[in-house]
């Protein structure tokens, strides 16, 4: 039954893609049809996922389907857990996309992005992405896994390259493709090493590989390969350019949905490869902390909404990697509770991030299509003109800021609790790494609050610019609203239902850590604890009841105690120091609000300020009514100190190697001869 459903789901996706390519983007019903196929296919896959999570593992042997060894599909709890998450999101996002691609009257010049969204092949690439995600999750052998992985890379490349309107679009899609290839190459190396040692292409057989240099190298390569997909430093550079390059709500699918295969891969290989070398746990913990801080610092100062959300993906990848690092540490020192709390925290964070990120990017897509801009300063007051979109945006932002009573608060609480278990570890290096990661995550949480307060404050609650805020009739369409509401409400509903969510996850994580250990996170039916008993406790469900209750009680008490005077507030107009007014913008801009971060974290951001055209306050410098240009420049440290020198060096080598192409026949024959000799030498030497 599961196999049939899986096949049906994938077939639906394939049929949708075929229909899109065949019928093109000219017919309105055909566009909608392709995304409808996405919705239906995702629903099938979601059912497969839920059944696999709760049911027994199932392996389907595909035989020599692809001509290389035996291919197989394996549906166990872990695959089921991630398949449930990604396909549920796939349903919601596809619903939004159906609305999007819909009404032709929105196809005027104002909706620049919408036109590309409905362009030829967009839906096909989107469906390819959904399908390849499912293939990666259910792959039982290396070949199928890599096939899905490369297909995913191709779909990312297509989606980031569809819009050609923006400058630097080409470099964005090239960066996405390049980092995807790097990730694929690292995985290929790891798989070859493991397959060579174990003599099998079936992933589950690799648990036979014993500890040693090869095991450690393969482990590290797997972390690099999957880390590049989720945005681990220093492989994160494609994200802030790649995600914004994709059209509208497709970004939600890339960042919220597809990125989870990276986490799935990390989890899967933890289960398969078992005990990691200690240094890898230390490295992952520290890299995760650095990734989180770097991501959120850059997110805090972005002027573009999509870049802000993209950088926040990097931040969340860092936090999730820290949780994963705790699990690695637990595996390395043989403490299953530590593995359980680390994985549980990381998985919860991954779920929170996926849902919130999807909500943010779908909402961003709506606003972009209606307002024609993605800059925060242009989107002021969207909460009033677009109440549905604004609410989803606010829900997602609160979740990613880790504020109660959202799921983000629960997951970040879990992450910090997991890191606090460092005293249970004997190894000093590991303890220091956990403490250091804890400090970085705490700092990250602080900056994250600032970042998302800025987002909510300016975009959702801000004062609308009367020139820009156009009417929002038929905002997002009925299906789009349903998608937005389901994504936004999930941020709260999943927190309320967190005991059930944890039980569901515990079953899914069974291939790595026994369900009985993971279930230790439930102290009481509605109370959570970090697996270890008597450490601390939290009840997100009660929080959802208590927080509004307290607010209400306070308001009632205030009104009662003041005998109603509290409601009769004396109101006067806003006060601005009695000034006669100023010319130009006269209140805090989104840029200005983030400026203290630029100053305080100047070491991370490489902040530099330049003044051009005269000296402020000094009369001889500035000609009459001239403008002095004030510029703030930020430097991405990884980009500036790693990739730019590397690129320079590479280009130098390429330049040098051009000399080999002399054009003379004799030289080419000499090269061939040299190569032949080299091959012979190697062959003889290794025999």
């Amino acid at each position, binding site marked *: 039954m599961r196999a049939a459903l899986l096949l049906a789901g994938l077939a639906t996706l394939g049929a949708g893609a075929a229909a899109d390519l065949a019928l093109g983007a000219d017919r309105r019903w055909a566009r909608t049809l392709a995304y409808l196929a996405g919705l239906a296919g995702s629903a099938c896959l979601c059912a497969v996922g839920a059944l696999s999570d709760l049911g027994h593992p199932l392996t389907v042997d595909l035989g020599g389907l692809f001509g290389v060894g035996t291919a197989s599909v394996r549906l166990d709890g872990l695959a089921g857990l991630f398949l449930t998450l990604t396909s549920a999101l796939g349903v919601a996002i596809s619903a939004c996309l159906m609305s999007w691609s819909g009404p032709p009257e929105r196809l005027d010049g104002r909706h620049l992005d919408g036109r590309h969204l409905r362009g030829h092949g967009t839906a096909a690439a989107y469906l390819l992405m959904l399908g390849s995600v499912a293939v990666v999750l259910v792959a039982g052998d290396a070949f199928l896994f890599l096939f899905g992985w490369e297909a995913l890379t191709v779909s990312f490349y297509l989606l980031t390259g569809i819009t050609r309107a923006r400058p630097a679009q080409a470099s964005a899609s090239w960066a996405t493709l390049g980092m995807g290839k790097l990730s694929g190459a690292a995985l290929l190396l790891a798989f070859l090493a493991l397959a060579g040692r174990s003599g099998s292409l079936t992933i589950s057989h690799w648990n036979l590989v014993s500890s040693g240099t090869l095991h450690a190298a393969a482990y590290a390569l797997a972390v690099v390969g999957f880390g590049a997909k989720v945005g681990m430093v220093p492989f994160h550079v494609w994200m802030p350019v790649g995600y914004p390059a994709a059209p509208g709500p497709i970004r939600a699918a890339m960042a919220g949905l597809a990125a989870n295969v990276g986490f799935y891969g990390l989890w899967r290989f933890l289960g398969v490869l078992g005990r990691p070398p200690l240094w890898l746990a230390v490295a992952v913990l520290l890299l995760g902390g650095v990734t989180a801080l770097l991501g959120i610092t850059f997110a805090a100062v972005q002027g573009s909404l999509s870049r802000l959300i993209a950088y926040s993906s990097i931040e969340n990848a860092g936090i999730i990697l820290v949780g994963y690092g705790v699990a690695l540490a637990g595996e390395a020192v043989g403490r299953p509770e530590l593995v359980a709390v680390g994985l549980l925290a990381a998985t919860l964070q991954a779920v929170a991030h996926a849902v919130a990120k999807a909500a943010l990017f779908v909402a961003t897509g709506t606003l972009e299509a209606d307002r024609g801009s993605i800059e925060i300063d242009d989107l002021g007051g969207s909460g009033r003109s677009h109440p549905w979109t604004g609410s989803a945006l606010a829900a997602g932002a609160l979740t990613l800021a880790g504020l109660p009573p959202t799921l983000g608060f629960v997951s970040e609480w879990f992450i910090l609790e997991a890191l606090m278990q460092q005293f249970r570890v004997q190894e000093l290096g590991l303890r220091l790494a956990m403490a250091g990661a804890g400090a970085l995550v705490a700092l990250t949480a602080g900056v994250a609050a600032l970042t998302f307060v800025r987002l909510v404050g300016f975009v959702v609650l801000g004062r609308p610019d009367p020139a820009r805020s156009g009417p929002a009739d038929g905002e997002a369409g009925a299906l789009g609203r349903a998608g937005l509401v389901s994504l936004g409400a999930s941020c709260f509903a999943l927190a309320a239902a967190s005991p059930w969510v944890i039980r569901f996850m515990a079953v899914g994580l069974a291939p790595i850590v026994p369900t009985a250990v993971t279930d230790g996170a439930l102290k009481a039916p509605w109370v959570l604890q970090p697996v270890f008993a008597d450490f601390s406790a939290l009840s997100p469900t009660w929080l959802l009841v208590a927080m509004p209750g307290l607010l209400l009680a306070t308001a009632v008490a205030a009104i009662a105690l003041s005998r109603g005077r509290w409601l009769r507030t004396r109101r006067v107009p806003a006060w601005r120091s009695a000034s006669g007014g*100023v*010319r130009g913008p*006269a209140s805090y801009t989104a840029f200005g609000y*983030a400026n203290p971060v630029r100053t305080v974290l100047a070491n991370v951001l490489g902040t530099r*300020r330049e003044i051009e055209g005269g*000296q402020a306050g000094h009369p001889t410098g500035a000609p*009459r009514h001239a*403008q002095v240009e004030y510029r703030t420049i930020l430097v991405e440290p990884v980009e500036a100190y790693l990739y730019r020198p590397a690129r320079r060096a590479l280009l130098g080598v390429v330049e040098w190697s051009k000399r080999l192409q002399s054009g003379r026949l004799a030289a080419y024959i000499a090269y061939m001869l040299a190569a032949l000799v080299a091959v012979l030498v190697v062959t003889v030497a290794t025999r």
Partner: protein
Amino acid sequence: MTAISPTLRLEPAALVGAVVERVEAPGRFAGLFATARPSGSTELLAVVATDGRLDVLQAHLAPGVSAYPALTPRVPGAYWYEREIHDLFGLVPEGHPRLDPLVLPLAHDAPRPRPGAGQPGPGLMSPDESPLPGLVSGEGLFTIPYGPVRSGVFESVEYLVETPGEDIANLRVRVHHKHRGIEGRFEGRSTADGVLVAERVEGVASVAHAIAYCQAVEGLAGVVVPAPAQLVRVVHAELERVANHLESVIRHTEASGQAVAYARLTLHKERVLRLHGFLCGHRFGRGVVVPGGVANGARLEPDEIGSALDKLARDVDDDLRLLMATPSFLDRLRGTGRLSGDVAASRGALGPVGRGSGLGEDVRRSRPYGAYSLLGFEPAEARSGGDALARQNVRLDEIRTSLELARRAVAELGGQERGPWRVPVVPPDGLGVGWAEAPQGEVLYLVESTGRRLARVKPRSASFHNLALLASALRGDVFTDFAFVEASFGVSIAGVAG
């Protein structure tokens, strides 16, 4: 008053060259003023201070001439002076980099007050409130209007802070809200009544303004003020300096949240004002200085004053010593509001602002007047830091020297407590120039008398000259530094707006 060279008359076109020549001599540009004549013509008067004397350069603009070559491109210190002249007289300095309105924004073709013209004013002139264009542009730049009504008890002034958030990219100052047209209130009064107006040009430096005004009148009349009167003037001027410098430190302590220090220093300041009141009947020393001397001797016995001054000096010194050992206070001042020595020198910064940026000039010493040379006055040592801390250190030194000077003057006065207090002053027609070192820096008075009446008086407060430098000092600072930089400049807006 031997330190004024005879007025040099020039063509308007030659004015720039003559000023530049004297500033490079080296000298210090001290101000550019204008006076309207009943005939419709206008006189431009540039004052340059060189080596112990003042050079006054005068250029005549015939009726109907409404432009002259601007000084500012070559003499940056003239920046605000030319804006003020444009506002009050409608003259256009050709080549001025930024002729934004300053003290009185009026429509382009509106009639101007033209002080000195002697006609009854054109009725109430309402300034044009329309906003000024900004100077700085860039990503995220916006303008915060701070004032004219600000939090706290301050004089009205509007600071327009151009900022990308937190950092101060540029500061523009609008002082016109407080423009009272007080220069015009001198005209037609007797020289004896003029001092009442002079005392109110800058109310917190009443004594210094009265002295500068009276010395201009006395210089014109050629009278010598009796020695006892000179000593009484010193006592009041120095008490006024102590109160002003304490006020600057008080505002630093307030901005840095030093509650006890704030309470202690405000108590000391209240005692200084009370001593002032007991001495002469007025808490700000008004009514003491009159042309030709002082109105009366001190109302207290020299011993009483002496012991009051001693106690004050002890208490103040004790608290200031502790304040300067409080790291949380000093951290806010160190490096804040740095005014480089080059800018200070090229713009001719005055008083403690100049002395905090390495300029040693103190007119009590460079162009001595009254009893200062008799009392053996040595000016406070200049500091080179240029930051708020350097300016405060200058003020702390001056509080001590001022109390000591007052003590010495009282001791001298002990033998001469019967007067004489004043001599009659009958000024001839002509121009007199007077100066004094106010707490804010050098005060200049240009007094023109015709038929024993004041035809035109131009007071130039150090506040006007120094406030133009505030924007330069704020470069690279953030919002929270603003209160410290403003307090360390210690300007009175009344003296700026006129």
